[in-house]
């Protein structure tokens, strides 16, 4: 059971299957808040749902409206169970705080593989 210690961005505990990408994510326009499916053309996660997953990506990008998109996903039940970043930026940071989605950054995300079982709590990622 390996533990990766990072920086706490948003409190709470999330557990589930990891979905990992090496590409930044724009939530506004890039993820459908009604389904949780990535819709950005050409994104390596295009067509995949982030709902209930431990979503692992390097950093956010795009419009600041993306913070509200994360909030809409949480309310719609399509949000990820937790978010793990290499470097969290303002759109995702504000989004996870207002939505109360657990989030940690400063993690070596290459150590997490899609499909593995992961827990996120208090700034620590546990590979189960």
């Amino acid at each position, binding site marked *: 059971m390996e533990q990766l210690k990072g920086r706490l961005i948003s409190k709470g505990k999330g557990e589930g299957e990891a979905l990992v990408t090496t590409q930044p994510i724009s939530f*506004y326009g890039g993820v459908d*808040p009604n389904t949780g499916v990535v819709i950005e053309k050409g994104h390596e996660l295009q067509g995949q749902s982030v709902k209930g997953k431990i979503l692992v990506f390097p950093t956010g990008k795009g419009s*600041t409206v993306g*913070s509200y998109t994360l909030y*809409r996903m949480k*309310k719609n039940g399509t949000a990820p169970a937790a978010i793990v970043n290499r470097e969290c930026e*303002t759109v995702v940071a*504000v989004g996870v*705080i207002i939505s109360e989605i657990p989030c940690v950054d400063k993690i070596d995300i290459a150590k997490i593989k899609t499909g593995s079982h992961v827990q996120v709590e208090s700034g620590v990622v546990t590979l189960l």
Partner: protein
Amino acid sequence: MYLTEKEQRMLEGAEGYAVRKSMEILVALGDIYDAKSLIKVGSVQVAGVSYHNLGDAGLEFLNELAKDGKVRVLTTLNPAGMDLENWQQLGISPEFAEKQNLVIDAFKRMGILISCTCTPYLIGNLPLYGEHIAWSESSAVTFANSVIGAKTNREGGPSALAAAFVGKTPCYGLHLDENRVPEVHVQVNAELTKLSDWGALGYAIGKKAENKIPYITGVKAADLDELKSFCASVVTYGAKPLFYIKGITPGAEQQPQPKETVTIEQADIKNAYDNINDEVSDIELVCVGCPHCSINEIAKVAELLEGKKVADGTEFWVATSRTAKQLADKRGYTQIIEAAGAKFACDTCMAVAPLKGRFKSLATTSAKGCFYSRQNNMKTKMGSMEECVEAAVTGKWSS
């Protein structure tokens, strides 16, 4: 980030839900960007007002905050998704209007001024040189930083609200003088002859100075409307929300001219127009006022439209603040413009109104307006106020 005892208590919930949530946002941002402390802000501009972008979840979020959240500093509001008084005239559905009004009610309960404009600096939210503020709306952020010399990062809607409820923002980024040093010298060798040339210049510089602070030389003169247009364009197309123009904007003389130099030639301006303009001749919507029209721009529209008629099948919107419209009413501009069949679009604009699917083509003076209208699947044409009025009257783009 260091917190005073009072700030620590705010974070722990001693001053209610909205303040606690706001402190969580501000502390997270401060930690991410290594801010040493929070600093007081003189005013706030809140974006994220259109129901089109917020949806029901966003409305719910605002209602939660409005339960006990009250702003502690002068706080103004960005444009909404519709004219709050004459939405029917602009073809907005009653369902949308009902939701939009609920959003506005939430902001009212927070104590925010329902200014609904992207030009807060024209209607009474005018920061001072060097003053720390927390603004969202990229064109206004750029204007405040560059033309006024106030200091703000580019906030999103929630982080601007957080600053308003606490009266403070984390001190990082463009609040610090060491981050306001120009990074690339832009020598302008092109002649700028009409308002839309400033939008084209913003495009050209935005692309060449991507994510940098430009130090611009070679610009001989500029007025308020030209700088307002340039601010919207340069940040939309890629630069940081701060620039210096030697001889024109404050602080330029005190800053070092960067060694790295790029030039803007007449061909770059032409190239900007070529990129912004699509192949289209029939114009369904003419919209001026991105950023919102000043009273001078409204006067110009009235002068050009007097005695003319907007073509059948074409709509002409003049987007502005309600404050500017009230001045136009008193001066008789409104009557001239409406007699020609054009409409005022107060409180809203082409970037945030629900226009997708309603119009296939747009003519405007604004480079930023073209960027957002393309996202609404419209073909775009950018030109002078004269060209836009002509397009409205003939229904065609001529040049």
